[in-house]
């Protein structure tokens, strides 16, 4: 569902550009709104959310799709934690659909999806692993890297049980906005994937904005 936001970038309390291949880590307080902006189009923002006070509670793709009875995310979707609690509401979306089935790229999944010799190419899970090891104080490790949201990715499921990678629904300037229902740690890997045609083999920056 396309739903535009009333929030203006000039009034944002925080703005950061995240280049492709880098991670973004920030606590968004309950009541704050975070926007992820696709600056140049068809870029994947692979995102994990944790309860900022107890990261053992985290975004759960399976609990979210089951509780909303639908596999896609868009405005109106409620992101549910592994404990069954509401973490964030998607309050605006100019893209229309986001994926939470496809997971993140990893060096190891690059070997199976593309070619065995792709194993040393930078991937989303590497970005997250760098993030958690550089932020030891969070107490996170590979155990905490679980199923995520791929903002701006379109992965349609067919009635026969097929899974396709359609993409191409995002564009420069499209965004998704989420309002936090609890204090959440947001961990984004701005995807460095060079093997997938969805971004024309050209990963690009995203911007993250925050309103109080």
């Amino acid at each position, binding site marked *: 569902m396309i739903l535009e936001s009333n929030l203006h970038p000039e009034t944002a309390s925080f703005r950061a550009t995240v280049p492709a291949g880098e991670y973004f880590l920030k606590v968004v307080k309950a009541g704050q709104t975070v926007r992820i902006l696709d600056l140049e189009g068809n870029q994947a923002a692979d995102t994990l959310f944790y309860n900022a006070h107890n990261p*053992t509670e985290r975004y759960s793709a399976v609990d979210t799709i089951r509780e909303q009875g639908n596999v896609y995310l868009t405005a109106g979707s409620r992101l549910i934690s592994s404990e069954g609690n509401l973490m964030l509401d998607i309050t605006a979306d100019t893209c229309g659909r986001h994926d939470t089935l496809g*997971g993140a790229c990893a060096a190891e999944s690059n070997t199976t999806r593309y070619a065995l010799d792709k194993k040393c190419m930078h991937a989303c899970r590497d970005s997250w692993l760098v993030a958690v090891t550089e932020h030891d104080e969070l107490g996170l490790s590979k155990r905490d890297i679980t199923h995520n949201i791929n903002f701006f990715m379109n992965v349609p499921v067919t009635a026969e049980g097929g899974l396709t990678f359609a993409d191409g629904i995002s564009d420069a300037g499209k965004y998704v906005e989420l309002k936090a229902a609890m204090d959440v740690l947001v961990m984004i890997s701005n995807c460095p994937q060079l093997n997938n045609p969805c971004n024309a083999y050209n990963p690009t920056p995203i911007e993250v904005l925050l309103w109080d």
Partner: protein
Amino acid sequence: MLHTATPPNPALPLYDDLIPGGSHWSFIIRRGHVLRLIDEEGGANVGMLMYNPANPLERYNMPDTLKNQHTFLLTQGHVLLSDMGRVFASIVHDDLGWHDTVSGTCNRKLVEQRWGRKTYQDARNLYHRNGTHSFLNELAKYGLGKKDLTANLNWFSKVATNDDGDLRFVPGHSRAGASVDLRFEMDTLLVLHTCPHPLNPASDYPRFPLRYQLYKAAPVSDADPCKTSSPEATRAFANNALYHLFEQEA
């Protein structure tokens, strides 16, 4: 549905066991063995998680399994992938054509809301267990916990979607005697429960047992239907071969 060229190993099972409905269990299965899951009465749901016992940080990965094989369902011909690009198990035989891995598992709140609260004090071993606690109970036996819970498999359950992505649980999907055979391609810690599927609309707590049997697997050839089912599966088998390289030399 994909078809395998060889029928399941006809030899007698090495082991045969029945797990009651609404229960949980775990064990390590060695590679080169087939685990046959049998829906003893019809209507079963088997929640399952998989880990590498030598490094439990390697675990079943639902997104990698689905996207590598361009599928939303699991059936004969598919392989179950770890997050390290390797195959835990191949689905070498399936009577049903559809198993779910996207709906997660039932938790305490869901079970109480749908089927009511039944404690051990009330119901003894027929108390209402839920999938999340069952997984955690078994995981704790290996030093694992909440952080290790991930998207699980739901054997014998079908959850389809329409064009809008709306989920639909298909009642009556499985029948008495229906079976699925998993051939293990690496040593695997299996954690399983027989708690209800979280989308099962039944009015009474669904309680269906699982029969499982262990067989010795036939050697896996290069022409194996699971190994050749997709270029992605072939490459995952190559990763397994590398993982077992020193073992094969010994």
